[in-house]
């Protein structure tokens, strides 16, 4: 029997802020090259799951394996080196720096300028706004524009696992299409993507797998298309009117 190592395996993960637990035993497996979309009600722990993987939040129990290696004790910085990047939900650009400077900050652990420029060019291909607004202060961009730069910035470290917390939030319909298309392109490029989305239908539509988080536990997993077609999932999580 050949042993198979998944890219990411969360087993019985518990975590929280202060005394209470937000995650109450999360089990989730992500294979290399997959796009996995986590959906669920507000406050069910979706963002917290991403934080335990990137190291922004420590876990209280369970394990987080990345390429078979336990990473839950590692610092966020160490996890960056392993190729895990996290685009959080709240705005994270430096508003007083230009778009280009923000992109450079995304590459702060790199020293080779040739590599930095190459990656900048690649990110620009997917997100033209990086070039169009290169010299503008990030704080002067609209909310939706900032979101695109944040996702573009995450590519500067050539990550193998990208954690995206609501990449489509605040985006106009045109930009939203662009973001979901770019997520597919990133996966084709060999990257693995774990995303949290309240635009659940769009998120599941581009995903190979979906997971429903409810009250700190994974209540259900399935192929993205299966979850989309499940009337119970629609009633509880996708909304009946949003088609």
């Amino acid at each position, binding site marked *: 029997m050949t042993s198979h190592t998944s890219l990411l395996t969360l087993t019985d993960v518990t975590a929280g*802020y*202060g005394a209470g637990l937000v995650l109450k035993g999360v089990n989730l497996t992500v294979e290399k090259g997959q796009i996995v979309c986590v959906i*669920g*009600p*507000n*406050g069910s722990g979706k*963002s917290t799951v991403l934080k335990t993987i990137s190291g922004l939040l420590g876990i209280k129990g369970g394990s987080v394996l990345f390429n078979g290696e336990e990473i839950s004790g590692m610092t966020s910085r160490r996890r960056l080196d392993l190729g895990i990047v996290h685009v959080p*939900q*709240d*705005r994270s650009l430096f508003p007083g720096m230009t778009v280009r400077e923000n992109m450079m900050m995304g590459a702060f652990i790199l020293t080779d300028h040739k590599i930095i420029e190459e990656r900048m060019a690649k990110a620009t291909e997917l997100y033209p706004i990086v070039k169009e607004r290169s010299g*503008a202060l990030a704080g*002067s*961009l*609209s*909310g*939706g*524009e900032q979101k695109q730069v944040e996702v573009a910035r995450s590519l500067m470290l050539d990550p193998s696992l990208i954690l995206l917390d*609501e990449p489509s*939030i*605040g*985006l*106009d*319909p*045109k*930009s*939203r*299409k662009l973001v979901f298309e770019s997520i597919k392109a990133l996966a084709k490029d060999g990257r693995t993507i774990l995303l949290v989305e*309240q635009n*659940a*239908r769009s998120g599941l539509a581009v995903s190979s797998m979906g997971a429903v988080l409810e009250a700190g536990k994974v209540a259900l997993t399935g192929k993205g298309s299966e979850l989309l077609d499940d009337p119970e999932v629609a009633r*509880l*999580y*996708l*909304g*009946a*009117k*949003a*088609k």
Partner: protein
Amino acid sequence: MSALLKIENVVKRFGGITAVNGCSFEVAEGSVTALIGPNGSGKTTAFNIITGYLKADSGTIEFDGKKIAKPTPASLYRAGLSRTFQQARIFPELTVLENLVISSSFDWKQLLGLRVTAADRARAMITLEEFRLDKLHDLRAGDLSYGQRKLLEFASVLMSNPKLVLLDEPTAGVNPVMIETMEKHIRARNKAGVTFLVVEHDMQLVMRLCDPVIVLDHGSKIAEGVPEAVQSNPQVLEAYLGS
């Protein structure tokens, strides 16, 4: 129907960028008017000017038949104009319940003493229950998730007694099922006479709920009409919806 809000030739520049460029539109009393447009088209800037958070370089704003010479958020709120923000603004150190009660009161003694009357409490709890926040009523509001904060801010606006409510991307980061709850509340308040101006990228919601729809691009109005007409307007397709 007469205009409750009238914006005329409003201009706002930030450095070299003209965010709002000679913008004029009206919001009819009793309507649910949508303000849509691409990221960076000036929607939030227009909101900030209308609600007194920014000062326009030129142009006039009329609310409830009166020109507002020196608008401030507080004086406008007292005059019956309230709003929500893209990044929900709540009182993080107050509890969820206190956040709601504070919005329903102009009585500063009550605010400072944080005396929650039984009637206020009962009314607030009904609203919280609908947004699945009732079990969290004693929690520090700053500990809520992003989406829960949006729901709390929305619920808070419902507690006040405004004539006009401006909603800035109310559904961003909100679970689709809760979006339907929001929609229900907007309809109910509208029926009771409250006028709404809504910035929103969820086009299905806009098409179901809003009439008329005003479209901004590059800081000025490019289209206005019933949802169906706007949706098929070639200029709007090009600028906003994408093909």
